[in-house]
């Protein structure tokens, strides 16, 4: 059994994105709403939510996230307030989707989605190499990996 942990670069990228989104939101509020008090209240609310998610929720989420891979199945452990453990047999995977960003090795935004009977299992914020390794355990890996090399 091998355990995979999420890529910490993903947390940094996520923090940058949250900061950017909060700045745009506060800027839009400041630009469109003329009442200073309302702007301050909204900015405070957005800022608090952003700080909470950047420095409390997502670090805890990343700490809770891990994937155990065996010969037969993959198990996802996640959850900050409610812990969940999902297991999927590789043999039940019908098809896969891989989502990546440019500079995937540095952003940590590599997601693998296994589509199985009755649902899907999302493996989030994987290291690029880990994502490819996990995929290699399914029958559709070759095509996805090959495709990625072609595009990158």
């Amino acid at each position, binding site marked *: 059994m091998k355990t995979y942990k999420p890529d910490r670069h993903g947390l940094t990228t996520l923090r940058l994105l949250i900061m950017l989104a909060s700045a745009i939101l506060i800027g839009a509020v400041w630009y469109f709403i003329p009442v200073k008090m309302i702007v301050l209240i909204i900015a405070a609310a957005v800022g608090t939510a952003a700080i909470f998610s950047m420095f409390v929720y997502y670090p805890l989420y990343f700490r809770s996230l891990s994937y155990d891979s065996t010969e037969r199945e993959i198990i996802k452990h996640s959850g900050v307030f409610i812990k969940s453990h999902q297991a999927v047999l590789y043999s039940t995977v019908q098809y896969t989707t891989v*989502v990546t960003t440019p500079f995937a090795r540095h952003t940590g935004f590599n997601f693998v989605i296994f589509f199985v009977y009755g*649902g899907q299992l999302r493996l989030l914020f994987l290291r690029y190499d880990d994502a490819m390794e996990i995929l290699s355990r399914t029958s559709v890996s070759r095509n996805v990996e090959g*495709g990625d090399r072609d595009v990158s």
Partner: protein
Amino acid sequence: MYHEHPLRILRYSAKNIWLLLFPLLRGIQAFHFDPEGIYAWLRGAWFDILILGVIIMFGLVRWNFSRIDITEDSIVHREGVLLRVRTAIPISSISVAIAEYPLLLIPFRGVRFSCDTRAGLLKSIDMKLLVTRKVAAQLMKCVPEVDRKKKLADIPKADIWSVLLFSVFFSSGFSGAVYIAAFFFKGGDIAQDIITRSLSRLTETTSKLTFGVLQKIPATAIAVGIFFIAAWLLSFIVNLFRYSRFHVESDSKSLNIGCGVINRRVYKITSDHINFTDLRQNLIMKLCGAVTVNINCAGYGADSQHLPVLMPIKRERKLGRSLEPLGVVGGVKLDFRPSPAGIGSYIFWPVAAALAIFPLSDLLSEFFPRWAELSLFAAIMLEIPTVWLVAVKTTATFTSGVSIYDKKLVIRCSHWTAFHTVIADKENVVKVQIYQSFLQKPSRRCTLCVWLCGETVAKYRVRALRLRDAAKIVELLEHDVRHKNEKN
């Protein structure tokens, strides 16, 4: 490596860019050729044209990044510029591959290709592409073809009468109204103008009719009636076009279905992925011994507009043994039937509703006297389907039941106004439930529910079965859900 059809650029440019077509048509209508006019228009609209150019350029980039690869064992689609999404579907997992040839795309040699697997929770298609004919042919070639040498020769043909009757039985005023609503919401201002004008003309005509001929029926009721008849006719015509030129061919491993005139669709179905077959009937079809053969397979009939039909309308006894390789068995005798004394569990609610409609209408008239005529009309309109439902449920009491033989399970039951004969492999039964209400307990009757595997919930229910029969069925299905009394 293939690209999608260049028409896809428009879709990628903006989801609703086609809505610009209506202002453009209006502009063309009002346009008179004049070089000065063009210059003035360009001076005024240069910024809009620039934005439109940027949108189309964005679409072009996205289209360029959308690539299709056909490998030995998979279809791989890559899309997205910043977020790159790569979906790989193994050919062995494909349940249904669909090639759609819409009339509008024929001049552009465009084909809508889609394929679906058994994965997922809802009836959603896993991969949708707009491609050229050449690419569509390559994609369809991936999915196993019907072997001409091993083709099942005696599959009944769907003739024009079969399609015509199917369109009659499966058209409804409601689906027609949905088409009109879709045209209203998606068609922009011009479509809204046409519909609003037609409706006001309909109201004027019905007012004249009410005044002159049908003085006792309120104008609103006539308008609603005419609207639904027109909607039914529309639905009938749509169905007729959709299922005309119906063609089925099959060998033991795969199944090809083609149908449609304006939007021709070709389906390639993997026979092993068919979950179960369902012989559907309404009361009239039941009396005539006619059935519609449906199949439950991921991707076939996944969109709300198409029914998963294998055979539009056929006499049940004429099905014979020809469809047996596809899991369709005709003339099965039922081993376990509901007790006739349990008719109450079938007809209680329909009878209660039928008896309550007129008193409720009277009550409504008491409180709102101005609405009395409309309320009476609505009560009559509601009473007809309710009485129909009573007739259906009464018939269901005597025709429902379960049969199990070899590896097959056959369930005859009714759901609303439709009768179903479901034929499934025993291994496709995912859940069995027996439940007994306090009214059923003294008579030792119960209701048996069977869930079959599929993309959506496929639950079939037989009421008023004897408890010992239900327990026997569960035992034969090799499920361990026995009633506590039976266990003891």
